[in-house]
């Protein structure tokens, strides 16, 4: 199990995703700052002409960017905890109480991210007009909620596994 190539691949992938997440956060922060510091220039660059400036649309776009920023530390916490779990699998002992707690935390974080996604979807739909349609990859996702459910179940499985492992350790 420890020699499986899937684990080093998963570790590197998670590290890349952590770096990309921070880059993505920096990009959102830059965009959000630009919409405040150089409002006209930024919105013109985004294809929103001064004639179609509607305060609610501007505020909606800023709210979406702000929610995107909120998601960055949440993504980071999910990825860090996944990395910690992968490391324990590499060490050959994944059925630990700590991993059950990691998975439970990941499940709650994923649930929060799903709620954020729905909120972003609602805002995008509210500010979208036929003249200026707003396309964002957010909203209700069956797969996303399935992942939340599966992670909660997996956390319980790990919790039971950790107890069994503890019992086995004291067995002679």
């Amino acid at each position, binding site marked *: 199990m420890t020699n499986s190539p899937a684990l080093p691949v998963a570790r590197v992938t998670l590290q890349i995703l952590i770096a990309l997440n921070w880059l993505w956060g920096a990009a959102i922060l830059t965009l959000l700052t630009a919409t405040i510091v150089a409002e006209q220039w930024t919105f013109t660059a985004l294809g929103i002409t001064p004639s179609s400036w509607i305060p609610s649309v501007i505020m909606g776009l800023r709210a979406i960017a702000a929610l995107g920023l909120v998601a960055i530390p949440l993504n980071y916490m999910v990825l860090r905890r996944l990395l910690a779990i992968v490391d324990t699998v590499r060490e050959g002992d994944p059925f630990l109480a700590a991993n059950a707690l990691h998975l439970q935390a990941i499940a709650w974080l994923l649930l929060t991210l799903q709620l954020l996604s729905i909120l972003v979807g609602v805002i995008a739909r509210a500010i979208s007009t036929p003249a200026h349609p707003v396309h964002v990859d957010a909203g209700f996702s069956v797969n996303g909620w399935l992942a939340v459910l599966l992670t909660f179940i997996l956390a319980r499985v790990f919790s039971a596994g950790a107890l069994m492992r503890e*019992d086995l*350790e*004291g*067995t*002679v």
Partner: protein
Amino acid sequence: MAITVKLDDLLYARRMTLTELSERVDITLANLSILKTGKARAIRFSTLEAICAVLACQPGDLLEFEPDSVAAEQSRAA
């Protein structure tokens, strides 16, 4: 724990060391030591069988139930 392991007494009676028993029952010295010091949470039938076979004893000779310690544990919990 109300169950005590009397491995020490049995080994003394048989003039056998824990290392020797470990080699004969094919169980690690570390695991036998856990059993001897009463730190084990469970014992496999296969372990019990191997020890009983080598020491020529019954499981009852190896394990003892002490009702007094149950009462002590219950009074501690209360």
